[in-house]
Every structure is written in structure tokens, then in C-alpha cells.
């Protein structure tokens, strides 16, 4: 079985966010991590590998330094890495990103593709389902549990108040939730292998077939940023020190109503 796991190197938004003077994110000044949902997806793939045997390929699209996140994944147990990087691919929205990654995946053999549900920088949750759509394969998003049954996968798919147990014929794409599992750590041996034994293949624009120039990078992105601004950091709000319990209750009810909570 061939499993592809799509991973993304993201700024660690929990570790402090640094802005450029123009209000854009200063990615260079921030620590990067493997996106948490993707790491859970990778762990799920590695467990399937442990259980059923599989070849796990990690794929990322990003700057050349995104190779680091592939090496980390290989140190955890992935067998090989593919880095899709090219200046002309930059500034892509989810349509252009998914078109590009799908084109890369067409170069590979796969039975199962696992992506994280969403990345903590963009929070869109769109790239996984859109890759599936470009590849014309079924998608099961929000996976809580993944099992293999012959040529089929059986997935627990989470909704707000329920889950569905779904059965899909492979090849298919699954998006994973961080709650899926507790990802393993890299091992010292794994780290040596990741740098000495295992291979990262680098693909540029020319290596991606069946991909129209109209669908890549900033120019190939249907959505355009009109404005981006630093969220106004929250300071202290109002503090009421002199309300009796009934007054306090009415004050909170007023705010809840004003904010359409109730």
C-alpha cells in the first residue's frame, strides 16, 4: 500500500507572532513547526504502516527551507519526501495550492492520501478536499479513526453532534483531526536515517504535468487579498465593581444579547 501524507510547515502561532511594519506576518522571525493536524495525519499513516505494511511518502509545498519538515517526518518514520518548490508557485490560495499539489501527486503511486484537516496559519480546511476533487477521488474529512479493509478504508467521520462510520474504496483522501492520535517522537536512529538514508525529491514547476499556468501562484488564485491587518490586541475591557447580583446578571444579559449570543 502506498500512502501519501501532505504536510505543511507553519509558523508556531502559539509561540508568539511577529509582524512586519506593514502588518504582514514576519515568517522569517518566527519558529516553524509541522502543522498539528498534519502531524496527526502522518502518525495515522505510520500506524497503518506498522499494522498493514505501507510505503509512506510525505509531500509538502513551500519555500526550500520546508525540507526541514520533510526530514522531521522521515525521522518519525516516513520513507521518503517530496518538496514542491518554485518561485512561480508562491502566493497561492487554496485553489492554486490544491491544483499544484494534485499535479505533484499525479507523479506518484498512491492508494491513500492523508492530509491534516486544516493548517494553523490559514485555518481554511479547504486544501484537502480540493486535492481530492482535482484527483477525482472520494474525500472523507474530519477523520477520528481510520481502518483498512481490503481495498476499502473505514473511517469515523466527526460532525458537531455525531459521527458517521463511512466506507470508501481506495484510492481516496482523508483529512485528519489533531485529536486522532498522539504523534510519536523522532528517534535518534530515525534522525540519522532521515538525513543519511532517505531521500527528498525536489520538484519545480517544470516537473508538474497536467497543470495549467492559469491555475498556479498568486495570478492563478481566484481569491485576492484586499486588506490584511493585525488584529487589535485585546486590552482590558469593562470592569464593573459596584453591581449587585441582579444588576450584574442584567449587565451580562445585555452584552450577550448585544453580541447575539442569545
Amino acid at each position, binding site marked *: 500500500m502506498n500512502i501519501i501524507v501532505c504536510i505543511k510547515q507553519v509558523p508556531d502561532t502559539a509561540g508568539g507572532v511577529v509582524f512586519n511594519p506593514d502588518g504582514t506576518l514576519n515568517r522569517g522571525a518566527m519558529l516553524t513547526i509541522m502543522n498539528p493536524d498534519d502531524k496527526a495525519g502522518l502518525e495515522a499513516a505510520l500506524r497503518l504502516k506498522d499494522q498493514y505494511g505501507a510505503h509512506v511518502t510525505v509531500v509538502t509545498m513551500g519555500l526550500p527551507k520546508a525540507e526541514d519538515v520533510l526530514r522531521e517526518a522521515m525521522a518519525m518514520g516516513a520513507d521518503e519526501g517530496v518538496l514542491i518548490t518554485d518561485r512561480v508557485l508562491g502566493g497561492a490560495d487554496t485553489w492554486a495550492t490544491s491544483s499544484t499539489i494534485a499535479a505533484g501527486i499525479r507523479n506518484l503511486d498512491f492508494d491513500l492520501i492523508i492530509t491534516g484537516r486544516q493548517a494553523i496559519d490559514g485555518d481554511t480546511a479547504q486544501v484537502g478536499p480540493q486535492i481530492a476533487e482535482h484527483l477525482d477521488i472520494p474525500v472523507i474529512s474530519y477523520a477520528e479513526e481510520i481502518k483498512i479493509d481490503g481495498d476499502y478504508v473505514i473511517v469515523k467521520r466527526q460532525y458537531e453532534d455525531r459521527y*458517521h462510520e463511512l466506507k470508501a474504496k481506495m484510492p481516496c483522501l482523508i483529512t485528519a483531526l489533531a485529536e486522532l492520535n498522539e504523534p510519536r517522537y523522532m528517534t535518534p536512529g530515525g534522525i540519522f536515517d532521515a538525513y543519511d538514508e532517505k531521500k527528498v525529491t525536489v520538484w519545480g514547476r517544470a516537473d508538474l504535468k497536467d497543470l495549467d499556468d492559469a491555475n498556479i501562484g498568486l495570478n492563478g488564485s481566484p481569491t485576492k487579498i484586499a486588506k*490584511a491587518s493585525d488584529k487589535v490586541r485585546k486590552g482590558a475591557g469593562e470592569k464593573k465593581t459596584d453591581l449587585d447580583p441582579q444588576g450584574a446578571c442584567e449587565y451580562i444579559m445585555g452584552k450577550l444579547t448585544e453580541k447575539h449570543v442569545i
Partner: protein
Amino acid sequence: MAIEDYKGVYIFAQQVDGELSGIALELLGKAHELAEPLGTDVTAVLIGSNVKGLCNTLAEYGADHVILVDDPKLETYRTEPYAQALSGVINEYKPEIMLVGATAIGRDLGPTVSARVATGLTADCTGLDIGDFPLQPQEGVEQKHNQLLMTRPAFGGNTIATIACPNNRPQMATVRPGVMVKRAPEKGKQPDIIEYKPDLTENNKYVEILNIVKDMGKKVDIQSAKILVSGGRGVGSPENFKILDELAEAIGGTVSCSRAVVDSGWKPKDLQVGQTGKTVRPNVYFAIGISGAIQHVAGMEESDIIIAINKDESAPIFDVADYGIVGDLNKVVPLLTKAIKEAKAKTA
């Protein structure tokens, strides 16, 4: 087809088990505001099996037209037949705007459909307006009018971005539930129903539903809760968390807690908010009897609205709270529970 020929504001009227989801009515409210400056009208797309009865409600809440796609294959949500249905509607009727709720269904359906009809999609929007793109005139760039401007948080809520989709139609967005406002219903308004039969041919993308489990058991996920009622040591005892449970039940929230509460053995670890617990970002976070140590604040400061109740006026929680009450939680919380129940009974 020229993009000017795409007309109308459409919403996906999500229903589950034959009941309309709240987001459907919220989207109708917003769709009306958007339709006015565009001089167009509002269409709800209702997809399901035996759901015609819901058309009246959609009309009452502001749908000028309802496109009904009713088929036994659509009884329970599955990505493929729903994507066939919605993209079929888009290709047939050519809306200029298509809004979908940012729910566990909408955030699956939206990206699939937008990729299928080859347009952009903006995720989890908290604001929608009609305006110009670019916002200001720019030398050498055509400024397009009457564009959908979609506002959303990104980078873990650290930035706010406004996004347009100037060259593709429809302009599509998923919209965060609980943000847009429903209209007052026009009782008795009759819907204009258009029944549409899309091509629902089964293909490799149809998945089989083996089982549906509605009882999620005791598993509590505080990270996906929209409203958290969080208690600290100030609650006083494990038994006294009952008043928090009652508030949570009344407002439709989930109980969480501070580290002190877990360390005292009052609540399990999976309910803990903070640096050594979970990071949460609900729409509303009640901090009740929580002093607000920096480690706690790190796990909840991104909440949209923070309401603190604490008897200690100097508690640091008041430095991050939007609305702070210095008072006795044992008195304020039960009164609040009662008031919320009364308010909900009135609007139900």
C-alpha cells in the same frame, strides 16, 4: 459566459435529519443585506430527502426563491451526492454569490463544490460586505464595483484579512455560525419553489454509510465548544460546579476549568484550559472564579468574548476580560442561568 451574467445571492440551506440548521436562517439574514445594494434577490438551495416542508420556513426568514433538490440519495449528508446537487444548481442557475455555513458539513461541501465549479472560496468568514476591489483606486488596475468583500481571521486569530474574488463566479464563502443575524420571520410568507433534478449518477466518489452514532458518549471536546463555562478554584468545591453545569446547559455551552481545579482532583485533565492544558478559542468564554494566571490566559485569550466573574477586584483575569463582574459567583451565576432560560423560552 460573462461574469456580469451571474445573478442573485444564494445560500445553502443546511438541514440535518429534516431540521434546518440555525446557520441556514443566519445566512438568509446576511444574504438580504447583500442583495439590496446589488439590486437582486435571495435564493435558498435546499438539499435533502422529503424536505419540501422546510421551504415555508426559508421563505419566512427571507428566501425569495427556494431551489429544492429532493432525492432519496440525499437523505443523509455525503460529500459526493451533495456536491453533485450543489454544483448542479450553480451550473444551472449561475448565482453571483453562494454562501455556505462553516459547519462540519459546509467546510467539506464548500471546498469540493468550489473546486468543481472552478471558483474561489473564502473560509470561515465573520464579515461580508459589498464594495470595491481594490478597496482604493490604483493606477493601472481596474477597480471593480459591487464585489463581495469577505472578512475572516487568520494566523490563529492574529490577523484579520479581507478577501475578494473579482474574476470568478460565483463568489463563494463559508460563514462562521453564530455571527450573522436572522431576520424577523414574515409569518405565512409563501415560498416560490423551483424543483431541480441534478445528475446524481453514482460514481467512485460515493461512500457507504455503515453506521451513524448520535450519542457521542461522555467524550467532551472543549476545543470545539462555541461557548465555554470555565471554573477555577474560586468555585469552592467539586459539588459547587453544579451551578456551572446548569449555566452551561442553559446557554448551550460546555464546562471547562483551570489547572488548580484539575490539581485538586475536582475535574479531569481533558477539561483543563491553559498552557499545560488545551488552548481554546470559543465565541464566548466565561471565567468564573478564575484568577487568571498567565498560564491560564495563554490558553484562552483568543476567545472572541471573555466574561469574568470574580470576587477579587485585583484578579489578573480582569486584564483580559471584555466584561468583568466583581462579585459573588454563587449569587450571580444562578441568576444568569435563570435569565438565559427565560430569554430562550421567550424566543423559542
